[in-house]
């Protein structure tokens, strides 16, 4: 024990005590500020051209409507497929169960980008060859399976996410207490009445939050559609960033800009989703009131943003 180390540890002790008085959230905010400052410093050193971004952001953001159309249509398709798939997965009908199992297994078992290429480039020859093989097929069948890039990409997103969401929906339906179904049966409800009035409304309470996560994840995965070679006019934001970045040799600025756009969208939708989550919890349990009040006191809680991939 030397006096020097004693003084040192005393000082450290005082620092810790002083630090304990600063709210945790303030310290976290400071960390974020420092991280942004470091990035800004790095960007400056790398001669980051903010003027170029200002000039081109408008063009890149012009792709937002395509990004959103793809994401919204994709999630709509996925929700329909997940609903049908989950009902099939809990049914005793071997055909429904088998088809749904096959669908989920294939689309969870292969990469999304491969599924996109299957729809975009592997389907057309199927149509062509079938038309040659079977003359009774209607005229124009050889072109029937030719999809444009955005359509193929959207359908692939819907099929892929639908497979994952089938399991989410199935778990949600099975989370509804068994007594609820028994009560519906005892009241003489038909299967469809039981599902529509009793089981699904309660299941959706469980299903909606993860579906929000899936939507946010899908919005980011719309970038993959650009690999299918969308035409410049209907390009979504990632494709646009790629095009202008390459053209002006401003890859750094283009990709940083588009990354920030995705990040912003994710934070925005996560915010909406957490509000929705609080709303749908209403009327179910007493603890909700306590939680809602606690949440009200914690508004603006920072979240890392982003759902699971």
């Amino acid at each position, binding site marked *: 024990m030397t006096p020097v180390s004693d003084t040192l540890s005393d000082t450290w002790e005082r620092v810790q005590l002083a630090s304990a008085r600063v709210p945790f959230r303030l310290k976290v905010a400071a960390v974020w500020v420092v991280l942004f400052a470091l990035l800004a410093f790095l960007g400056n050193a790398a001669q980051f051209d903010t003027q170029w971004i200002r000039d081109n952001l408008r063009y890149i953001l012009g792709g937002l409507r395509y990004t959103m159309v793809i994401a919204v249509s994709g999630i709509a398709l996925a929700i329909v497929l997940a609903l049908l798939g989950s009902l099939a997965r809990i049914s005793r009908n071997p055909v429904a169960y088998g088809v749904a199992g096959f669908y989920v297994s294939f689309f969870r078992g292969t990469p999304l980008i491969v599924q996109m290429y299957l729809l975009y480039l592997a389907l057309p020859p199927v149509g062509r060859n079938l038309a040659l093989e079977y003359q009774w097929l209607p005229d124009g069948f050889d072109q029937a399976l030719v999809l444009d890039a955005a359509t193929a990409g959207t359908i692939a997103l819907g099929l892929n996410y639908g497979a994952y969401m089938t399991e989410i929906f199935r778990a949600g339906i099975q989370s509804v207490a068994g007594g609820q179904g028994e009560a519906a049966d*005892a009241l003489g409800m038909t299967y469809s009445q039981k599902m529509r009035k009793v089981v699904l409304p309660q299941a959706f309470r469980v299903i909606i939050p993860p579906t929000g996560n899936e939507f946010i994840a899908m919005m980011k995965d719309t970038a993959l559609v650009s690999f299918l070679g969308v035409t410049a006019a209907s390009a979504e934001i990632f494709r646009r960033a790629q095009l202008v970045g390459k053209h002006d040799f401003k890859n750094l600025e283009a990709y940083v800009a588009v990354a920030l756009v995705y990040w912003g969208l994710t934070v925005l939708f996560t915010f909406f989703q957490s509000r929705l989550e609080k709303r749908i919890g209403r009327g179910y349990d007493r603890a909700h009131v306590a939680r809602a009040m606690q949440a009200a006191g914690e508004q603006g809680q920072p979240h890392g943003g982003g759902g699971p991939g």
Partner: protein
Amino acid sequence: MSADVVVRIAGLHKSFGHLEVVRGVDMEIQRGEVVVIFGRSGSGKSTVLRCVNFIEDPTEGSIEVSGIRLQGGYRTRRKREQIRQLRLHVGMVFQQFNLFPNMTVLDNVLCAPRCAGESTAEVTKRAKELLDRVGLADKAGEHPIRLSGGQQQRVAIARALAMEPDVMLFDEPTSALDPELTGEVLSVMKSLSTDLHMTMMVVTHEMGFAREVADRMAFFHEGRILEEGTPKELIEAPRHAETRAFLDAVL
């Protein structure tokens, strides 16, 4: 056979896997009769009740309710619809209430008539009368979660009555309630018998209720009816040692 038999259970067996829970039960319940079924847990009493409206499928034997007679065993598409028709004659009240949390109290009561396609105006009037009967007219707009257990169970009784059933099944209706709340549920059940002459099958350990309301009692033991008789006979002079031991434990 009497034309006024509402429920006829014949040769009922029920197995869960290798475990045979019900091993041959025959029962007839006359119109207006209140039958209390009691026995140890695992004696098959609840399972018999749940077989009456095919919440459980009987493994063997037949169930007849209001002239609809169905055999146990596999459910074909046609049989599923026949089961539904049978269920329309049977009201059921569960231990855990099983009210629908996504609906108001009134919508819970309206559920069965609406699903049967009855017009709303007259049905709503009847539903409100039923809520009044169970003493909860002022709770019509509430969600079930805001109600006490006793209130929830009374709503569940009104919901089952809205079907205008020929028989009411009660599966341990007070077992999930705090002791001070059982009285309000039991008195509603009693009024169904005295005011409406409702036919009831009640699985319960409430011997006070049985003594007061039941016409007949059946003691279940190891999947069979060991002893049957009036409350006076069973409670005061049980013939079997098992019945006596059980009564000593609950009285």
